[in-house]
Protein backbone atom coordinates (compact mmCIF):
# COMPACT_ATOMS: atom_id res chain seq x y z
CA UNK A 1 0.00 0.00 0.00
CA UNK A 2 1.50 3.32 -1.08
CA UNK A 3 0.83 6.94 -0.16
CA UNK A 4 0.93 9.95 -2.49
CA UNK A 5 3.54 12.63 -2.03
CA UNK A 6 2.27 16.17 -2.48
CA UNK A 7 3.78 18.11 -5.39
CA UNK A 8 5.01 21.62 -4.62
CA UNK A 9 5.11 23.58 -7.88
CA UNK A 10 6.56 26.71 -6.21
CA UNK A 11 5.19 29.04 -8.88
CA UNK A 12 4.95 31.80 -6.27
CA UNK A 13 8.68 31.53 -5.62
CA UNK A 14 9.77 32.62 -9.08
CA UNK A 15 12.15 35.49 -9.88
CA UNK A 16 10.25 37.84 -12.16
CA UNK A 17 10.60 41.37 -10.91
CA UNK A 18 13.07 44.22 -11.13
CA UNK A 19 15.76 44.45 -8.46
CA UNK A 20 17.64 47.42 -7.12
CA UNK A 21 21.41 47.38 -6.77
CA UNK A 22 22.60 49.15 -3.61
CA UNK A 23 26.16 49.62 -2.38
CA UNK A 24 28.04 51.18 0.53
CA UNK A 25 25.62 49.51 2.92
CA UNK A 26 26.24 49.10 6.62
CA UNK A 27 27.68 45.68 7.32
CA UNK A 28 25.26 43.44 9.23
CA UNK A 29 26.62 41.68 12.31
CA UNK A 30 26.17 38.15 13.62
CA UNK A 31 22.72 36.72 12.83
CA UNK A 32 21.62 40.11 11.51
CA UNK A 33 20.61 41.33 8.07
CA UNK A 34 20.60 44.59 6.13
CA UNK A 35 17.88 46.71 7.72
CA UNK A 36 15.15 47.53 5.19
CA UNK A 37 12.41 50.13 5.03
CA UNK A 38 8.89 49.07 4.01
CA UNK A 39 9.51 50.31 0.43
CA UNK A 40 12.37 47.83 0.06
CA UNK A 41 15.14 50.41 0.18
CA UNK A 42 17.84 50.15 2.85
CA UNK A 43 16.89 51.89 6.07
CA UNK A 44 18.51 55.32 5.86
CA UNK A 45 19.21 55.54 9.60
CA UNK A 46 21.38 52.42 9.72
CA UNK A 47 22.65 52.71 6.13
CA UNK A 48 23.74 56.31 6.15
CA UNK A 49 25.86 56.02 3.00
CA UNK A 50 23.60 53.68 1.00
CA UNK A 51 24.22 54.22 -2.69
CA UNK A 52 21.77 53.27 -5.45
CA UNK A 53 23.59 52.24 -8.61
CA UNK A 54 20.58 53.01 -10.77
CA UNK A 55 19.16 51.25 -13.79
CA UNK A 56 20.65 48.15 -15.36
CA UNK A 57 20.43 47.09 -18.97
CA UNK A 58 18.78 43.75 -18.19
CA UNK A 59 18.81 43.16 -14.44
CA UNK A 60 21.43 41.54 -12.24
CA UNK A 61 22.81 38.01 -12.30
CA UNK A 62 23.15 36.69 -8.76
CA UNK A 63 25.48 33.81 -8.25
CA UNK A 64 26.86 31.48 -5.58
CA UNK A 65 29.13 28.75 -6.84
CA UNK A 66 31.35 26.25 -5.12
CA UNK A 67 34.11 24.21 -6.64
CA UNK A 68 34.04 20.62 -5.48
CA UNK A 69 37.04 18.38 -5.88
CA UNK A 70 36.14 14.72 -6.16
CA UNK A 71 38.46 12.03 -4.83
CA UNK A 72 38.73 8.50 -6.20
CA UNK A 73 40.20 5.22 -5.07
CA UNK A 74 41.42 2.47 -7.29
CA UNK A 75 38.87 -0.07 -6.12
CA UNK A 76 35.81 1.98 -7.13
CA UNK A 77 35.05 3.82 -10.32
CA UNK A 78 32.94 6.59 -8.85
CA UNK A 79 34.15 9.34 -6.52
CA UNK A 80 34.03 8.32 -2.86
CA UNK A 81 34.29 11.72 -1.23
CA UNK A 82 34.44 15.38 -2.13
CA UNK A 83 35.82 18.57 -0.72
CA UNK A 84 34.70 22.15 -1.30
CA UNK A 85 37.86 24.04 -2.10
CA UNK A 86 36.45 27.26 -3.49
CA UNK A 87 33.34 29.42 -3.05
CA UNK A 88 32.43 32.37 -5.24
CA UNK A 89 29.59 34.80 -4.69
CA UNK A 90 28.90 37.54 -7.20
CA UNK A 91 26.46 40.11 -8.57
CA UNK A 92 26.87 40.93 -12.24
CA UNK A 93 25.11 42.96 -14.91
CA UNK A 94 25.35 46.16 -16.91
CA UNK A 95 24.74 49.66 -15.62
CA UNK A 96 23.49 52.43 -17.88
CA UNK A 97 24.52 55.40 -15.72
CA UNK A 98 27.90 55.79 -17.36
CA UNK A 99 28.02 59.58 -17.05
CA UNK A 100 27.30 59.47 -13.34
CA UNK A 101 30.71 60.00 -11.77
CA UNK A 102 29.61 58.57 -8.41
CA UNK A 103 28.55 55.33 -10.09
CA UNK A 104 31.73 55.13 -12.12
CA UNK A 105 33.95 55.87 -9.11
CA UNK A 106 32.26 53.06 -7.20
CA UNK A 107 32.98 50.71 -10.09
CA UNK A 108 36.68 51.53 -10.00
CA UNK A 109 37.94 50.53 -6.53
CA UNK A 110 41.65 51.13 -6.05
CA UNK A 111 41.77 53.07 -9.30
CA UNK A 112 39.21 55.88 -9.45
CA UNK A 113 39.29 58.98 -7.27
CA UNK A 114 36.26 61.25 -7.34
CA UNK A 115 36.79 64.97 -7.52
CA UNK A 116 34.46 67.90 -7.97
CA UNK A 117 34.25 71.63 -7.83
CA UNK A 118 30.82 72.93 -6.96
CA UNK A 119 28.79 73.76 -10.07
CA UNK A 120 31.77 73.39 -12.41
CA UNK A 121 32.69 69.73 -12.95
CA UNK A 122 32.68 66.23 -11.57
CA UNK A 123 35.49 63.89 -12.50
CA UNK A 124 37.20 60.61 -11.75
CA UNK A 125 40.96 60.73 -11.67
CA UNK A 126 42.47 57.43 -12.70
CA UNK A 127 45.52 56.19 -10.86
CA UNK A 128 46.25 54.11 -7.81
CA UNK A 129 44.68 54.39 -4.37
CA UNK A 130 43.71 52.10 -1.49
CA UNK A 131 41.15 49.46 -2.45
CA UNK A 132 37.79 49.95 -0.75
CA UNK A 133 35.45 47.00 -0.38
CA UNK A 134 31.76 47.59 0.08
CA UNK A 135 28.71 45.80 1.39
CA UNK A 136 26.45 45.43 -1.64
CA UNK A 137 23.00 43.99 -2.27
CA UNK A 138 20.29 43.45 -4.84
CA UNK A 139 16.85 43.95 -3.30
CA UNK A 140 13.70 42.86 -5.14
CA UNK A 141 9.97 42.55 -4.44
CA UNK A 142 8.75 38.99 -4.10
CA UNK A 143 6.17 37.57 -6.48
CA UNK A 144 4.47 35.75 -3.59
CA UNK A 145 3.89 39.09 -1.82
CA UNK A 146 5.09 42.29 -3.48
CA UNK A 147 5.06 44.14 -0.15
CA UNK A 148 7.88 41.85 0.96
CA UNK A 149 11.41 41.71 -0.39
CA UNK A 150 14.21 39.32 -1.16
CA UNK A 151 17.85 40.31 -0.72
CA UNK A 152 21.06 38.94 -2.14
CA UNK A 153 23.80 40.50 -0.04
CA UNK A 154 27.59 40.36 -0.40
CA UNK A 155 29.24 41.58 2.81
CA UNK A 156 32.54 42.68 1.33
CA UNK A 157 32.54 43.05 -2.43
CA UNK A 158 34.63 44.55 -5.16
CA UNK A 159 33.81 45.20 -8.82
CA UNK A 160 36.36 43.35 -10.93
CA UNK A 161 34.85 44.21 -14.31
CA UNK A 162 36.30 47.71 -14.47
CA UNK A 163 34.37 50.15 -16.63
CA UNK A 164 33.92 50.19 -20.37
CA UNK A 165 31.18 51.45 -22.64
CA UNK A 166 30.41 52.44 -26.16
CA UNK A 167 29.72 56.10 -26.74
CA UNK A 168 27.38 56.01 -29.68
CA UNK A 169 24.30 57.52 -31.27
CA UNK A 170 22.99 54.15 -32.35
CA UNK A 171 23.07 52.15 -29.14
CA UNK A 172 22.55 52.67 -25.45
CA UNK A 173 25.87 52.89 -23.63
CA UNK A 174 26.31 50.61 -20.64
CA UNK A 175 29.17 49.37 -18.53
CA UNK A 176 29.47 45.86 -17.10
CA UNK A 177 29.81 45.22 -13.40
CA UNK A 178 30.79 42.09 -11.55
CA UNK A 179 30.90 42.43 -7.79
CA UNK A 180 32.85 39.54 -6.29
CA UNK A 181 32.48 38.67 -2.61
CA UNK A 182 35.59 38.49 -0.42
CA UNK A 183 35.54 36.54 2.82
CA UNK A 184 35.53 38.28 6.16
CA UNK A 185 37.65 35.55 7.59
CA UNK A 186 36.89 35.60 11.29
CA UNK A 187 33.12 35.83 11.03
CA UNK A 188 31.20 32.65 11.84
CA UNK A 189 32.36 30.06 9.29
CA UNK A 190 28.82 29.65 7.97
CA UNK A 191 28.51 33.37 7.31
CA UNK A 192 31.73 34.81 5.87
CA UNK A 193 30.74 35.89 2.35
CA UNK A 194 27.15 37.07 2.39
CA UNK A 195 23.56 35.97 2.66
CA UNK A 196 20.40 35.51 0.62
CA UNK A 197 17.15 36.00 2.47
CA UNK A 198 13.58 37.12 2.16
CA UNK A 199 10.99 38.70 4.40
CA UNK A 200 8.19 36.40 5.45
CA UNK A 201 6.33 38.62 7.93
Amino acid at each position, binding site marked *: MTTASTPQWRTNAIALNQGQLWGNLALPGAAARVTLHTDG*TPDAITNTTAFHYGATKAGSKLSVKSQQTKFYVDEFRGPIVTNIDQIDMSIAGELVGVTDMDVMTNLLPGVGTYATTASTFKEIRIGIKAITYQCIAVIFPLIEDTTKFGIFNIYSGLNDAGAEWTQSRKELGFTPFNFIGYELTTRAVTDTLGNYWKQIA
Partner: protein
Amino acid sequence: MNANLETLAKIHGDKAEAAFREVADLGGFGPVGTAEGQIHPSYAGGLDVAGVLAESNTAVGPEAKARIAELTGVDRKAADALIDGGQTTSSADKMKKDGK
Protein backbone atom coordinates in the same frame (compact mmCIF):
# COMPACT_ATOMS: atom_id res chain seq x y z
CA MET B 1 22.35 52.96 14.60
CA ASN B 2 25.46 52.99 12.47
CA ALA B 3 28.98 52.78 13.81
CA ASN B 4 31.80 54.12 11.71
CA LEU B 5 34.99 55.99 12.47
CA GLU B 6 33.32 59.35 12.03
CA THR B 7 30.49 58.66 14.48
CA LEU B 8 32.78 56.93 16.98
CA ALA B 9 35.30 59.79 16.86
CA LYS B 10 32.60 62.10 18.22
CA ILE B 11 32.38 59.88 21.30
CA HIS B 12 35.88 58.45 21.65
CA GLY B 13 38.13 60.96 19.92
CA ASP B 14 41.45 59.42 18.92
CA LYS B 15 40.38 56.07 20.40
CA ALA B 16 37.64 55.71 17.78
CA GLU B 17 39.43 52.96 15.88
CA ALA B 18 39.86 50.88 19.05
CA ALA B 19 36.13 51.29 19.71
CA PHE B 20 35.35 50.30 16.12
CA ARG B 21 37.42 47.14 16.52
CA GLU B 22 35.70 46.23 19.76
CA VAL B 23 32.21 46.77 18.31
CA ALA B 24 33.11 44.68 15.26
CA ASP B 25 34.46 41.92 17.47
CA LEU B 26 31.57 41.85 19.95
CA GLY B 27 28.92 42.06 17.24
CA GLY B 28 30.41 39.30 15.09
CA PHE B 29 30.90 41.66 12.14
CA GLY B 30 34.33 40.32 11.29
CA PRO B 31 37.95 41.34 11.72
CA VAL B 32 39.00 44.97 11.37
CA GLY B 33 42.20 45.83 9.54
CA THR B 34 43.63 46.83 6.23
CA ALA B 35 44.56 43.35 4.99
CA GLU B 36 42.50 41.04 2.77
CA GLY B 37 39.55 39.47 4.54
CA GLN B 38 39.18 42.34 6.98
CA ILE B 39 36.81 45.28 7.40
CA HIS B 40 38.69 48.45 6.66
CA PRO B 41 38.43 50.72 9.71
CA SER B 42 37.54 53.66 7.50
CA TYR B 43 34.78 51.83 5.59
CA ALA B 44 32.22 54.61 5.16
CA GLY B 45 29.27 52.22 5.15
CA GLY B 46 30.05 51.35 8.76
CA LEU B 47 28.47 48.68 10.91
CA ASP B 48 24.71 48.15 11.28
CA VAL B 49 24.56 48.24 15.08
CA ALA B 50 20.78 48.11 15.26
CA GLY B 51 20.70 44.59 13.88
CA VAL B 52 22.87 43.18 16.64
CA LEU B 53 21.28 45.19 19.46
CA ALA B 54 17.70 44.17 18.68
CA GLU B 55 15.99 41.90 21.21
CA SER B 56 15.33 39.39 18.43
CA ASN B 57 19.07 38.88 17.88
CA THR B 58 20.03 35.98 20.10
CA ALA B 59 23.48 35.42 18.58
CA VAL B 60 24.91 38.37 20.47
CA GLY B 61 24.82 38.01 24.26
CA PRO B 62 23.37 40.60 26.66
CA GLU B 63 26.76 41.71 27.98
CA ALA B 64 28.09 42.20 24.45
CA LYS B 65 24.95 44.16 23.54
CA ALA B 66 25.36 46.37 26.57
CA ARG B 67 28.98 47.08 25.71
CA ILE B 68 28.18 47.78 22.03
CA ALA B 69 25.43 50.20 23.09
CA GLU B 70 27.85 51.90 25.47
CA LEU B 71 30.60 52.20 22.85
CA THR B 72 28.30 53.48 20.10
CA GLY B 73 25.95 55.58 22.19
CA VAL B 74 22.99 53.80 20.62
CA ASP B 75 19.75 53.50 22.59
CA ARG B 76 18.86 49.80 22.68
CA LYS B 77 15.14 50.53 22.79
CA ALA B 78 15.47 52.63 19.64
CA ALA B 79 17.40 49.81 17.95
CA ASP B 80 14.66 47.41 18.92
CA ALA B 81 11.97 49.75 17.59
CA LEU B 82 13.87 49.98 14.31
CA ILE B 83 14.48 46.28 13.75
CA ASP B 84 11.54 44.60 15.45
CA GLY B 85 9.14 47.55 15.37
CA GLY B 86 9.70 48.52 11.75
CA GLN B 87 10.36 52.20 12.48
CA THR B 88 12.65 52.57 9.50
CA THR B 89 13.38 55.35 7.00
CA SER B 90 13.44 55.06 3.22
CA SER B 91 16.81 55.51 1.49
CA ALA B 92 14.90 56.55 -1.64
CA ASP B 93 13.27 59.40 0.28
CA LYS B 94 16.63 60.38 1.79
CA MET B 95 18.28 60.48 -1.63
CA LYS B 96 15.49 62.72 -2.95
CA LYS B 97 15.89 64.98 0.07
CA ASP B 98 19.67 65.10 -0.41
CA GLY B 99 19.21 65.80 -4.11
CA LYS B 100 21.15 62.70 -5.18
